[in-house]
């Protein structure tokens, strides 16, 4: 069957209701290390620049070269950018996985593949788009590297014709990308054109799944969460970053370093207003941040599951000795090494109670890059205000994938809140100073920094039991008083923590969720609205929980707690802290390493509803 006749048959074939103009999923199946990533990014960003909401996801191996990697791009004009099951167009250019990749395409969907090698047609219910990518590149390019790399650009060019991507946007992006390396622009544009013309010559372009310029994503940004955190740390005044490389957290410190080199150079001397230490391990990474925090600099570290496990002892010290420090936990799949390049919300309990003994840690849960930026900047104020560690709980999905969100904002009048730190002058006025005296009754004592005053304010910080004057004690009652004060401090933390985001309209059922589950929620609500089922929502943004969380649970007959782990960790925490009745709390869980989808949530809630409304075609 020629490609033309395939395309023709497609024209008469019925199109799937879920897909259409500005509404489809394209998936790229590549070999990692083959240069596909930048080509695939080019594809997604070009769609974004047409003003169309888009959500790309990397599904990549823990490997440098040679293993399968996928890039999944959902386009949805309604702005539903959670993951959607099913692939409408598969760019199947990895021979290792091509059979399974083709199997994952929905009936009547499309498969673009490299026809330089014969492919045994394994399905009759999908449309094949054969392009001899390798042969084209062998013919057109001399350099062996280019012959490989440009195969990716050629398929992007073909997709431009097939999906109606604005070609000028693509060439404009190539020019931007290679600014300063102009001689690379021409061959890249040539590769795009080769694909574009091939598709125009051999297929009916565009396909029924295609793009139309939109205004939906206009004025927004497309950014990954880790970049936003790195930038938030620059804005929030962090001067010390100590870290140990660990996927998927690595790009946090890389982004911080990149922006610091541009924005944190003293204009007079050319010297740096920041220091980054790549430590020997995560124990040292958090230790350095704690040492800096103790001495009055804003400091952070970024890590993920295995590294955060190593930091536990130090987190307990910072909790008990009351030292401000910020940890960004970009969660990945555990336990142990788990799936290092897949996403999960599996560290909730281990972080909330990080370290031995009675500890409670402050957690923040961003769900968009904009919140990553804001929470990163806020976390330093919060840590200083509460004199305790703040753990920002992002995940691989948010951290390493680009998301469409509102532009970042900064109020220039904003001052850093350094919390209760006594200056030398203030110490001069004081009758008595005790590091852990609760003079204000809020459980937060006043601290001093080394060097503040020649004779006053010094104290000995320790992880061993201490009294209000910071002296060592084995008096159990004095110890208990300190522990009670710490509990009071923690209980009162809510006033400086972001409030939950609530959408309530008096429904009897509600959904409680946090972090990257947020991407799927508008679509879930839309699906249930269409069935006439109302669901209120509450998105948790911090721990300890605000009172509004308990109220929300009380006010609803059934609460679906949606999270991405096996053990319903958020539900456990809600039961412990909000005394929530187990009967009404229903878990919706996903822990297969990819972000939870609206379909999954919908299916789980549907199965739980007492009277299942009449089945109808699920549509997005």
């Amino acid at each position, binding site marked *: 069957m020629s490609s033309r006749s395939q395309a023709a048959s497609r024209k008469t074939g019925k199109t799937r209701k879920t897909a259409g103009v500005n509404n489809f999923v394209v998936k790229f199946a590549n070999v990692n290390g083959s240069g596909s990533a930048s080509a695939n990014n080019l594809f997604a960003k070009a769609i974004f*620049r047409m003003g169309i909401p888009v959500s790309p996801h990397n599904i990549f191996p823990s490997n440098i070269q040679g293993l399968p990697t996928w890039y999944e791009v959902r386009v949805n004009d309604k702005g539903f950018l959670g993951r959607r099951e099913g692939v409408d167009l598969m760019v199947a250019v990895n021979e290792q996985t091509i059979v399974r990749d083709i199997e994952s395409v929905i009936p009547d969907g499309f498969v673009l593949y490299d026809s330089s090698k014969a492919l045994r047609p394994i399905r009759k219910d999908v449309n094949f788009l054969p392009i001899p990518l390798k042969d084209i590149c062998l013919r057109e390019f001399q350099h062996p590297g280019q012959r490989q790399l440009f195969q990716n650009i050629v398929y992007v060019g073909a997709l431009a014709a097939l999906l109606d991507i604005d070609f000028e946007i693509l060439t404009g992006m190539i020019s931007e990308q290679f600014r300063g390396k102009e001689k690379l622009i021409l061959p890249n544009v040539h590769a795009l054109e080769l694909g574009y013309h091939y598709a125009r010559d051999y297929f009916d372009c565009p396909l029924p799944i295609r793009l139309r310029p939109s205004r939906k994503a206009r004025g927004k940004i497309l950014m990954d969460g880790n970049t936003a955190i790195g930038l938030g740390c620059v804005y929030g005044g962090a001067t*010390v970053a100590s870290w140990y490389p660990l996927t998927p957290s690595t790009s946090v410190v890389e982004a911080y370093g990149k922006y610091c080199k541009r924005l944190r150079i003293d204009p007079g001397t050319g010297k740096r*207003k*920041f220091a980054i230490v790549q*430590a020997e391990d995560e124990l040292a990474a*958090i230790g*350095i941040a704690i040492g800096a925090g103790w001495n009055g600099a804003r400091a952070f570290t970024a890590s993920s599951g295995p590294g955060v496990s190593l930091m536990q002892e130090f987190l307990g010290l910072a909790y008990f000795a009351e030292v401000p420090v910020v940890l960004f936990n970009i969660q990945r799949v555990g336990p142990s090494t788990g799936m290092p390049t897949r996403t999960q919300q599996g560290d909730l309990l281990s972080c909330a109670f990080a370290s031995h003994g009675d500890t409670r840690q402050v957690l923040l849960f961003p769900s968009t890059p904009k919140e990553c930026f804001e929470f990163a900047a806020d976390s330093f104020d919060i840590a200083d205000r509460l004199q305790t560690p703040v753990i920002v709980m992002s995940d691989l999905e948010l951290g390493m994938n680009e998301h469409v969100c509102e532009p970042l904002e900064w109020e220039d009048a*904003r001052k*850093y809140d350094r919390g209760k730190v006594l200056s030398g002058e203030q110490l001069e006025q004081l009758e008595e100073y005790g590091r852990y005296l609760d003079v204000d009754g809020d459980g937060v004592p006043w601290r001093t920094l080394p060097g503040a005053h020649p004779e006053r304010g*010094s104290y000995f910080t320790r992880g061993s039991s201490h009294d209000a004057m910071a002296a060592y004690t084995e008096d159990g009652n004095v110890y208990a008083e300190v522990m009670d004060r710490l509990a009071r401090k923690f209980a009162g933390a809510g006033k400086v923590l972001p409030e939950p985001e609530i959408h309530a309209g008096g429904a009897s059922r509600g959904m409680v969720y946090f972090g990257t589950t947020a991407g799927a929620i508008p679509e879930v609500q839309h699906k249930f609205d269409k069935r006439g089922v109302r669901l209120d929502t509450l998105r948790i943004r911090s721990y300890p929980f605000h009172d509004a969380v308990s109220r929300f649970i009380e006010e609803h007959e059934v609460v679906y707690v949606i999270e991405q782990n096996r053990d319903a960790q958020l539900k456990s925490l809600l039961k412990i802290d909000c005394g929530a009745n187990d009967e009404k709390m229903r878990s919706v869980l996903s822990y297969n390493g990819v972000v939870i989808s609206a379909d999954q949530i919908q299916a789980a809630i549907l199965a739980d509803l007492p009277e299942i409304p009449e089945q109808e075609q699920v549509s997005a």
Partner: protein
Amino acid sequence: MSYIVKPKFHHPQLQKNDLGYTRRDYEGTLTTLCGGCGHDSISAAIIHAVHEMSLAPHQLAKVSGIGCSSKIPSYFLERSHGFNSVHGRMPSIATGANLANRELYYLGISGDGDTASIGLGQFCHIVRRRINMLYIVANNGTYGLTKGQLSATADLGSKTKSGEESRYDNIDLVSLAIDLGASFVARSFSGDKEQLVPLIQAGLSHRGFALIDVISPCVTFNNTPLSAHGYKNTWENNVVLSEIDFVPMRKEITARYSAGKDKEITLHDGSVIHLHKTGSGHDPGNRENALLHVNEHKKQGKIATGLLYINQDQSDFHELADTVNKPFNRLNEHDLCPGGEVLADINETFM
């Protein structure tokens, strides 16, 4: 914990230093260590050293790990901030503290368990990072707080009080530090205050990472005639490579050792170290020579002490990291925040 409060009374005619402070102003709480513990002599030497060089106590921060050794920062320099952290991790706390404020003096106190076992990794890396600090190891070859297990610095064949014999080669911290590029490496003995005090002064004044490995006998668990780290063995086998005298900056030179002065080293802050060679042929400016002397003495069952190695040409962490002179902890939003307009430009790059 100390149930007895240290008396505040002191003799009215105690000698005052340039800042008007007496020795008492540099003391800490009452020690809780065993009577005769070498570590108390180290505390006393620190008090003596810092007072004598007229260092304002609040300009120094004490950091330590866990163990008998790491408790001692309570017993000196009460007017200095202190941080008793977690086992083996003092180097990371010291690193962070130093990054936050480069203007203070940092004094790290650790032990042989803290440095040579649980914290060996952190020790190696703080040497590599060239943090400007003095790192003192109170080295007794045993775990005191857990009642006398052998540590990794216990010499092969050394026996503890319970009769347990060290069957493994020891980790030699001075050799390791020299090998890793530490720029000031000394070994001393808690019982030799004449040597330890000027070494502490020189180590604090040195710009860069300074290590003093102090043999500090544990009277309770590791002080038998068969203990390599015991008083008897250390007194008998201590070989002083060169006698040292320290003259703080802007001070008149009044050397303790009147004759035989044959090397003078001026430190970056203007202080001067006088080394009185004892005919050992040791050259503290030469890394290989320093290592050779340490190893040769060890082979003969001797302990080479003194300033083993010094290199003043090395940059410290802040120079390598090219940081601003103003301490990070004094930078505010005006210094650090790029502002809304810049952010709007950054947004553009993501559109």
